[in-house]
């Protein structure tokens, strides 16, 4: 514990504040992961720890080691950049996989998911003709609607 006494008091207060706030945000993300109801809500909760928790703890670590050793210690930036690059990839892939599994009728579940295709223009015009559905023609992605005449 020799290195802890070498810090000036202002740096100790800043480092302690960063570490405490980062750990608290990570804990709040864990609480949200347990308490939220739907999977698509739970997907958002631990990102508190992924973004702010990682950022604050890495900043505190860089500041502490830089002041304790008297030189710039920047290798924690590697972890930060890696987490910043990989977290959107993993969570997007997980969300897309969950959406694909929820649209599968064979797996029993009670999640409410939006349908794959938007309603076609005649159906949208019949129930009131919202301006968004009237201007944009529906993509003829499904094979059944491809042969319909345009209104």
């Amino acid at each position, binding site marked *: *514990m*020799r*290195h*802890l*006494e070498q*810090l*000036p*008091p202002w740096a*100790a*207060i800043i*480092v*302690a*504040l960063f*570490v*405490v706030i*980062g*750990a*608290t945000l*990570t*804990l709040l*993300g*864990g*609480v949200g*992961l*347990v308490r939220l109801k739907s*999977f698509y809500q*739970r*997907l958002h909760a*631990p990102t508190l*720890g*992924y973004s702010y*928790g*990682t950022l604050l*703890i*890495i900043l*505190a*670590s860089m500041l*502490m*080691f830089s002041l*304790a050793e008297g030189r710039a210690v920047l*290798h*924690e930036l*590697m*972890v930060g950049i*890696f*987490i910043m690059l*990989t977290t959107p*990839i*993993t969570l997007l*892939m*997980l969300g*897309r*996989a*969950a959406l*694909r*599994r929820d649209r599968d009728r064979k797996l029993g*579940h009670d999640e409410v998911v939006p349908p794959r295709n938007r309603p076609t223009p005649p159906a949208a015009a019949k129930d009131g003709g919202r301006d968004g559905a009237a201007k944009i023609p529906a993509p003829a992605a499904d094979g059944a609607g491809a042969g319909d005449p345009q209104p």
Partner: protein
Amino acid sequence: MTAEILRFALGYAQIALILALALACWRMLLGPRAQDRVLGLDTMYINAMLLFLVIGMGNGNVFFFEGALVIAVLGFVTTVCAAKFLMRGEVIE
């Protein structure tokens, strides 16, 4: 005085991160569907990485940082493989 502030903050951070790890483990064991378990596992990886960083700050040791880096890389690979498996039913197409 400086050392007491830092020791208290690092101890609190370790306890909070261990609690977050336990909550993520609870979600992984309890998760009603497979994607909940994968999300809990990914959260456990990130929380363990942050816990290693905080323990390394308390010890003044650089080797914990390398452990944290290895955990981050392994967590990324694990979650991507599990998500690919959930989406397609196979990992390598």
